[in-house]
Structure formats: C-alpha cells, structure tokens
C-alpha cells in the first residue's frame, strides 16, 4: 500500500523544481534548454541505480564514486584504444563487484567498511591508469550520448528508458523480487531454498554493471576522464536513492523514484545557477534543497500514516 505512495513525492518535488526553474528562466522550457538542464543526469541516474542495487540488499556502497571514476578512466583509455581489452577489463570490474558482494556476505563483513576500503583500491587503480586527466571518449559512446532524437532530448529519453528497464528488472521480475526479499528478510529467502550468497553477488554484480555504464556515459559527455571525475557520485547516488523514496533497510527501493531523485539532484544544481546565487552558497543551497524535499516527504508520510 505505502509503496504505491512512495513514488508520488519524488514526482511532485521534481515537478515543483522544474516549474521554479522555468519560472526563473523561461528559455529553459525548450528542447535545447531541457537538454542542457538534464545533460549530466544520465550518468548520475545510472550511478543512483547502482547504489540502489546495494541499498536493496541492506548494504551501502561508499566506493561507488571511485568505481565510476575508474570505469570512466578505462573507457577513456583502454576501451578507446583497444576495445576488446577494454570490454574485458570492464567485465572484470563487474565480476569483481559480484565477488565483493559474495565475500561481504560469506564472511559477514560490514559492507560500509569493505566498500570504504575498496574506494581506495578503485581510486588507486584509476590513478594508475590516468595519473593526469586525459584520454578520449570512444566515438560511438560520444555519438550515443550526444544524439539528438526528435521531440524529446536524449537525456530525458535515456532517463525514461533507464527507469523502465530497471523497474521491470527490480520490481516486476522474479529475480528482482527475490533480491528485494533478501533486503526484507534474508533468512526466509534462505529457508525457501535460495542461495543468498549468489543473490547478494547478483545484486552487487548489477550494481557493478550500472556503475560501469555510469562511467561510460560520463566519458561520453565529458570526452575525457580523470581519476577523480566522479568522486562526488558516492554521496549523490545515496541522496538520489533516498530522494526517490528508497529506504536504507528492508529492501524498500523504487527504481523509478531513484531515477527521478537523480534528475532532481541534477536540476537543483542548474536551478541554483539560474538563481545567480553567490558561488559561496551554491553547495549550501543544494544541501538546503535536499533537506527541504525530505521534510516534505516527512509531512507527506505523516499525512499518509494518519489517513
């Protein structure tokens, strides 16, 4: 019952923020304007989905930003220069994420610490590959990210597509349901005959996959990479999941909400630049918007609980 309401608030907060942006800057209300507003949303949305996969099984990933940076570095170097090797390395990254999930579960390690340690590992590898900013985006990714479909800008279209695919995967499919079940009550899933280690590895593997996609998309937009390119994605992605109505424990997540949360965060940055706020306060205002939206969510859920 509550899960159906969970999606309303993210939608409303995105709509309000969008309306405010259009009010401040009517010219944004166009194909070109929207493209500009949501330009960076695609990699953030993918990273948010990745984080959601981890939060879905009651863990949290503090290494995601470093991981996306590493994926971006590999995309801008190996994938561009020697595509086959690049694909293999990226697949290896996904596999190592799955392995990380399996190890965390089998040894009963705290995910927050293991991913914390892994953030140093990913960051170090990225530095190793690209000690200084550089590299180049493979042509096809560049083309894909800058394609201009009719009517709807690429960023919006991609966001809808990501939301749709992950909704089918996480909410509708049997695999996604079991994975959410792991977050809800891992013991009963194990009792029903599932191998929870495999399931956790799957969730982490999916997170790795979306993390890699986020890195590739990011390079497609920025055309080059550096080892610190996406470090802030760790916190952005957590905020995106929560803004999207997800909860830290209990397997209660919403992929559609997560994508909307990512869009909201992206939009907040654009909105603030339209406000001509002193640069000193830009970061703080982002924090304030985050608090504001979550406060609205509180009022909303209280109302919902009373009804």
């Amino acid at each position: 019952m509550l899960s159906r309401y969970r999606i309303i608030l993210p939608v409303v907060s995105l709509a309000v923020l969008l309306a405010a942006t259009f009010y401040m800057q009517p010219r944004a209300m166009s194909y070109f304007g929207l493209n500009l507003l949501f330009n960076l949303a695609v990699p953030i949305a993918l990273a948010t989905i990745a984080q959601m996969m981890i939060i879905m099984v009651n863990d949290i990933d503090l290494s995601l930003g470093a991981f996306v940076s590493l994926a971006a570095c590999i995309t801008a170097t190996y994938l561009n220069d020697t595509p086959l090797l690049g694909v293999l390395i990226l697949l290896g990254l996904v596999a190592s994420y799955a392995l990380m999930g399996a190890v965390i579960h089998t040894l009963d390690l705290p995910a927050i610490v293991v991913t914390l340690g892994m953030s140093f590992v990913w960051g170090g590898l990225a530095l190793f590959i690209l000690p200084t900013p550089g590299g180049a985006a493979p042509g096809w990714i560049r083309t894909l990210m800058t394609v201009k479909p009719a009517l709807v800008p690429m960023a919006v279209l991609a966001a809808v597509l990501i939301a749709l695919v992950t909704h089918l995967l996480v909410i509708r499919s049997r695999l996604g349901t079991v994975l959410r079940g792991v977050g809800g009550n891992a013991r009963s899933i194990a009792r029903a005959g599932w191998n929870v280690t495999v399931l956790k590895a799957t969730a982490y593997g999916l997170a790795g996959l979306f993390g890699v996609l986020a890195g590739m998309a990011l390079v497609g937009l920025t055309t080059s990479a550096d080892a610190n390119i996406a470090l802030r994605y760790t916190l952005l992605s957590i905020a995106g999941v929560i803004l999207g109505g997800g909860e830290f424990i209990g397997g209660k997540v919403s992929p559609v909400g997560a994508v909307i949360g990512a869009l909201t965060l992206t939009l907040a940055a654009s909105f603030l630049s339209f406000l001509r706020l002193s640069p000193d306060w830009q970061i703080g205002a982002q924090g304030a918007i985050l608090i504001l939206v979550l406060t609205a969510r509180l009022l909303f859920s209280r109302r919902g609980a009373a009804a």
Partner: protein
Amino acid sequence: MTETDKPVVALRDAAKHFGPVKALDGVSLSVAPGECLGLVGHNGAGKSTLVNLINGTFGPSSGTVDFPGGAGDVRAVFQELSLCPNLTVAENLAMAHPALKGVGWRRPAGAEIRAALDRVFPDHGIDADAEVDTLTIAERQMVEIAIGFAPRGGAARLVILDEPTSSLDEGIARQLLSHVKAFCAAGGAVIFISHMLGEVFDVSSRIVVLKDGTVVADRPVGDFTRAGLVDAMGHVATEGAAQQAARSAPGEVILRAEGLEARRGEVVGLSGLAGHGQAAALARLYLGLSSDWRRGRGAGAVFVAGDRPRDGVLPLWSILRNVSISVLGRGLVDRAAERRLAEDWRKRIGIRTDDLTNPILSLSGGNQQKVLFARALASDAPIVVMDDPMRGVDVGTKQDVYAMIRAEAAKGRTFLWYSTETEEVCQCDRVFVFRNGEISAELTGEQITEERILEASFEMQEAS
C-alpha cells in the same frame, strides 16, 4: 506394508549436539500419513532442534532421519514470523515456489495464495497484493500458515506447525485446527507444537512428550489426561487450585489513562481478541509514563515485553547487564551493587544459569523472559506494564511468575497485564476487554469469567 503406510518421516536414535550441549539425545520417532502428531515439552526440551532436523536445517550428529517417500514437500511454519515484510503476500508465496518461473509468474502466485488462504481461513479478508508489513501480526501468521499448506508445485505431505496459534485469536485458531484435521483426514501429516494443551488435545491423534532431549512419552491422545501430560513434561499439575489465590484488597486509584483505571496493589488484565488495540494502548500508556529525555530515579512504570527480540532483549549483553539496565541510577555504575541485585533475582525468579556474565542469548526463551521479569521487578516502579509476557513460556515458569506477580501486588504494586490467554486474564482483579481498539467491557471480581470476556470480545448483542 503398502505405499501409503510408509511413514512420512522416521528418526532413529537421532541426536544433535551443539558443543557439549546435547540438544537432542537419541530420539526415535515416526510420523505416518494421516497422522497429527502433537509435540509438547518445556522450553529447551529439544522441540526446535527436532523440527530443524526434520526440516533439514541441519543434519543429526548421530542416528538417522529418513524420508521413505522422499524428502520433498516437508514444510515448516516457524514460531518467529519469517516472511519478507517488503514483499506482497503473493510474492512471498512465489519465493517459496520453485516452479514459478519466467514471465507471468505473478498471476498463478496470486491465485494460489488466495486459494490457500480461503481453504484454511475462510473469510480471512487478506489482500494477496498487500505488502506484508501492512498486515497485522495475526494476518501475517495466517499468511505463513497458508503458504505452508499451499501446493507450491507439489502437495504438502508433512507440515510442521511450531506454535502456530501464538498470535491468533480463538476463532481463527479454531479455523486452523479444523483445517489441520481435514488435512490429516485427506492423508497429510502434521507435527503440531503448542503450549496450549487444549489445542494439542483437540487436534492431535498422537502426542509425543520431549524432556531434556529425549522422548519420555509417545502415546495416542486418548491415553493422556491433561494432568498426566503436564506430569510427563516434568511439572506438577496445578490445575485450578493455585489460580484461586487470594485477591488483594484494592487501594486508591493511581492511574487513569487510555480509558483504563488501576488501583494500588491491583492486577489489571487487558483482554479481547488479539490485535484489537490492547498492545498499542499499553505501549502508549507506558511511553506516556516515561520519557524519551529524562530518567528520574523513581520511574513511574516499567515494561515487560512479550515480543522478546523486538521489545525486550539486548542481544549483545550478558544476563547481568540485561537485568540491571532499568535500575542503574546516575553517574557511575556501582558494579558490586549491580552484581548483588542480579544474583538476588537469579535466585528469586530461578534463571537457569551458573554464570550471570553469560550472554543473554545463551538462555532459552523462557529463561530470557524471566530476565525481563527480573529487570522490571527489580526496579521500584509502582506500575508494571506487561505486554503478553507469557508468549511461548512453559507451564512451570508461568506458575512461578503468577505467584511472584501476586506477591508483588500484595506489596502494593500495580500490574497492567495484557494476555492472549483467557485463563491468565481470569486471575486478575479487574479486566478490561478490548474490541476494535476500544474498551468494550470492564469486569471486576466475580464478573471475571471466560464467558463474560468472550461475550465482550465478540459483538454478540446489540451494539451499545
């Protein structure tokens, strides 16, 4: 021996040791199709271990567990609720249904759980698409039982029910019992574990009594009397007699809240069907009497939890620290006094341990409950709030605690006691019966009878 006479499960000298602890010490037992086996015994007698052996959670340390007809389709419904709260009722069934695959798995899952619920609990009113955490505890238990009996791509041959009625009210429990009978009549087998001996007598065809990890009695139900059964479990039967303990003379009214009224030295019972607002009223009342922010020395009330893992036990701590948490005072902990207090209560309430610094989780459920009683009674709070504290507690412990409550009441303490068992409520001085979240009757003295309580629990007469 024909195919149908083969036992569903046969244990021969099955034993299970956890380190030096012999949880199960050579049990031979078989369950035939069409049989409902009542399994009784005190906490720690080895019932859960036996269930886990049959269920395949772990293997025996020695001896054998055989399934002559194959180990498939043995189901267990556990005492603690084990659904995924974030999934819907139908999704929970699908998790335990290996045959549901591919696209379009939702529709058959929904149909199957609906059919199973309708069969076991007619008029259940549970929506198959509702998320489990929007259901009441009783509804969740019903869903779990229904999943246990659902075909799930085969047909349940043996269903193990471990305290299945602990959260159900009497009407729903009766539906379950009649379903169990029908299920067995159709050739299914059930192992029925319950502390409610009335139910065991009602539904079982045979009763097995476990004590200290061995079978001490295994006879058809007709060969047992209620007193004989309690004897076999190892406790002196106290039917009726002890329960007529002198009721204390009530003092002045010291509490009026939530429509309840309690006097000094009074044992006030809260009754009615499970889930009709008693627990919520008690929790509100207790939270109102204590503070999130301050702790005065003379706290107004203490709370005894019935749902131990959720509301009571502090799992990382020793028994000692679990007893003393409510009576620590201020500043630094006086560790000598803490120890004296805990030792004192260990003796008074009979917590079975030789070392109070053992972890609380090393105790059986009943003994953990005693720790929670000790925690509350050790304080000097004039009001003790008890939220169905006898859930899953054995008969012996119950008698000990009844006596202690009476003694404390005689000293001037007031008890507010919610119980799902009418028998317990009948021992109170004053009873409030709840219906649909409101108090439907207040009974005192001679008025407190099972009939009057039932009458007030159900909407039998014209609505007032």
